């Protein structure tokens, strides 16, 4: 008797679960549409950063920012019958998550800063054929250097090819506090300053501020995470370079070159005009506040500068100068985010449509105006919203002149080797010469043993 009751209960529970599953699946927004030119076609787009599906409040400005549902609505309106779903993730651990998603075929379109690492794996769709056959599309829409910067080697190619289109722009530059310059009576930085100019002005502005009496520091730079890029830019400013090659079997490092050594010695000298805590990302807590005590900041990015500066009411107080450039006018880290199509995407036509949509003014305006991210298209220079924030102009200038293609070792072991050795030099563990010799030796061994 009891057994019968138990069986009935189990059957009832199973039935209930099946019904709930069917109802939930039926209610799901990802069901395909059955009418329209793109009927039944669906793509999944992976995006990284502060994107949210629904509207949210910006933690810096306190203003409301629209969610990516705006993009979904517009794209689906422009492509009747099509459905787009999103996988949104934070920057933390994005490389391993991207790798996992690619392996399991989770999405059709990826925002992919590590395109140079993924393209050789044969998991991405080459974009040149799509560009060639689409007469409506032109690479001329992008800011100079942006397309070249994301070129990478494919699984079988010896030449750099296009695997991703620029989606978000980024740049590295030098920022400075005009108010401190005024208080010290020092002339603002020139648009393209030299190492000598920076050093001289940093020295002048270290000590007790003549107006406020507060302790000021001439310069600040990250001595840990991004120090390898700061040092390589210093070498580029002296017409040096990190090395040569793009494919690992062709890469030759020049970490111990005279330009790199001179650059590291320069950083060691500049450390005397900086607050304590460079190698632990400390000492810059007052930057972008009205109590700021640092005159010049090296290797800064737009995300940490433009929007926070305007949000704090410091837009007029901050100045932007370009990083150190070589004789060809190039130098500094190329950064940002391209978007790429997965090789195993089942709807590549629609995925290509998304790529065009993501690089159109509609989406590019959305990422700039709603999220404060940097657009990658030339037309942005004409937008009113850009003109209202003059700090964006030197940012766009900086986007045109980084070293391209992106440093192939930028997220690999040589970067960490070089960073650790810069830290060792900055903390007095080793001399600059020994540190760079060690970095050169270990990086070369790493490449040879790969």
């Amino acid at each position, binding site marked *: 008797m009891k057994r019968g009751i138990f069986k009935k209960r189990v059957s009832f529970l199973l039935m209930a679960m099946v019904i709930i599953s069917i109802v939930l699946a039926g209610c799901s927004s990802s069901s395909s549409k059955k009418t329209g030119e793109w009927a039944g076609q669906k793509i999944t787009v992976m995006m990284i950063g502060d994107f949210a599906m629904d509207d949210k409040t910006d933690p810096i400005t306190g203003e409301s920012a629209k969610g990516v549902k705006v993009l979904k609505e517009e794209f689906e309106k422009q492509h009747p019958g099509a459905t787009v779903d999103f996988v949104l993730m934070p920057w933390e651990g994005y490389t391993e998550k991207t790798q996992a998603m690619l392996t399991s075929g989770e999405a059709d379109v990826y925002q992919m800063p590590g395109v140079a690492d993924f393209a050789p794996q044969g998991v991405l769709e080459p974009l040149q054929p799509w560009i060639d056959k689409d007469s409506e599309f032109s690479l001329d829409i992008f800011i100079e250097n942006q397309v070249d910067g994301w070129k990478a080697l494919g699984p079988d190619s010896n030449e750099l090819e296009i695997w991703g289109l620029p989606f978000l722009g980024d740049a590295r530059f030098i920022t400075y506090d005009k108010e401190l310059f005024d208080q010290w009576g020092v002339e603002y930085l020139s648009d393209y300053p030299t190492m000598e100019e920076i050093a001289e002005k940093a020295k002048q502005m270290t000590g007790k501020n003549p107006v406020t009496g507060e302790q000021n520091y001439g310069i600040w730079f990250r001595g840990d995470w991004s120090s390898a890029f700061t040092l390589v830019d210093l070498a580029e400013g002296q017409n040096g370079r990190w090395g040569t090659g793009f494919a690992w079997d062709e890469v030759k490092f020049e970490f111990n070159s005279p330009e790199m050594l001179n650059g590291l010695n320069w950083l060691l000298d500049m450390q005397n005009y900086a607050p304590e805590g460079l190698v*632990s990302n400390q000492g810059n807590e007052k930057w972008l506040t009205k109590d700021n005590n640092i005159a010049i900041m090296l290797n800064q990015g737009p995300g940490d500068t433009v929007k926070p500066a305007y949000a704090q009411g410091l837009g007029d107080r901050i100045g932007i100068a370009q990083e150190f450039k070589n004789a060809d006018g190039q130098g500094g880290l190329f950064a940002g985010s391209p978007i790429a199509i997965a090789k195993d995407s089942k709807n590549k036509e629609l995925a290509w449509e998304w790529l065009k949509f993501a690089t159109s003014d509609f989406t590019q305006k959305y990422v700039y105006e709603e999220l404060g991210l940097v657009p990658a298209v030339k037309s942005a220079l004409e937008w009113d919203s850009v003109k209202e924030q003059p700090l964006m102009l030197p940012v766009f200038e900086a986007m045109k002149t980084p070293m391209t293609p992106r440093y192939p070792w930028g997220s690999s072991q040589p970067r960490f080797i070089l*960073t650790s050795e810069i830290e060792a030099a900055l903390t007095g563990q080793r001399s600059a010469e020994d540190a760079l010799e060690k970095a050169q030796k270990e990086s070369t061994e790493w490449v040879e043993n790969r």
Partner: protein
Amino acid sequence: MANNRMEANTPPPSVSPSIQTVTKTTKQKKRTSQWIWYIFLIPSFLGIILFMAYPIVESLRLSFFKSNGTIETFTGLDNFRTVLTSGPFWNAVWNTFFIGIFQVIITIPLGFIFATLINSASKGKNFFKVIYFLPNVTSIVAAAMIFQFVLHPEMGIVNFVLDSLGLPTPAWFSDPSTSKWGVILLAVWHWIGFVIIICIANLQAISKEMYEAAKIDGASSFQQWLFITIPNMGGTFAFLLITGWIGALQRFNEVYVLGGPNGSPARSIQTMGAFIYERGFTGFEFGIASAATYIMFLIILVFTFINLKISKLKL
């Protein structure tokens, strides 16, 4: 003996068919109900297979391959050779042991002393228990971020106090020679509440009669503590030593927050866990990372075995 013989010679009692049927049905029911419970175990069993057993086996397989997650080449024991001859790996082992040893040898005695004081307090026992246990329920990631400010070289409260007392102010996380001590301070602060609670639990379980007998024999409070309390705490100390040591060897979260995957500054706080993360998840060297994981597993196994032998803990 006689009873046994008698039992052996006695014919089996006759069982009526109705009783036999009842026994059979009961047995069947028992078997069915046992079988039903296995169904309920399936979800957790599947979870263990998918999220524990499979990754462990897959990681072992990967350790013999050069793999970036997609492209794989069999390399035999090359990854193990690379890890074992890598300077940064042994530096990470040294950092892990240095931080772990000092965490354990500072926290267990200190926690025990605090536990004894709290246990002997006449008032406010629960208040002190809560106060000391609070750090342990705080997320280690949040705690690490707070410690960056607490140990800030210029604006930190610790250096402010040291400076007020006329003592030298270290650069803490900005200097490789002091950064490990910063992590040890954080680890001690975070773990001591747990040690105190476990010690108090044991202290309360020690029989009061033993102390009363000792008092009658004229033992002082210190002698009671030394000859009754400490010997009775052996099992707890062993438990804390083993769990603390295993946790210390797996240290990752706080050093990742404080120094990133390469344990800045100058790899001074990079632990074995951080080394694995750096090679696996920032450089796509999954084979190297897997080999390092198995080497770390062997190191933990050996030291846990030694700890068990030293502490004579019976598991």
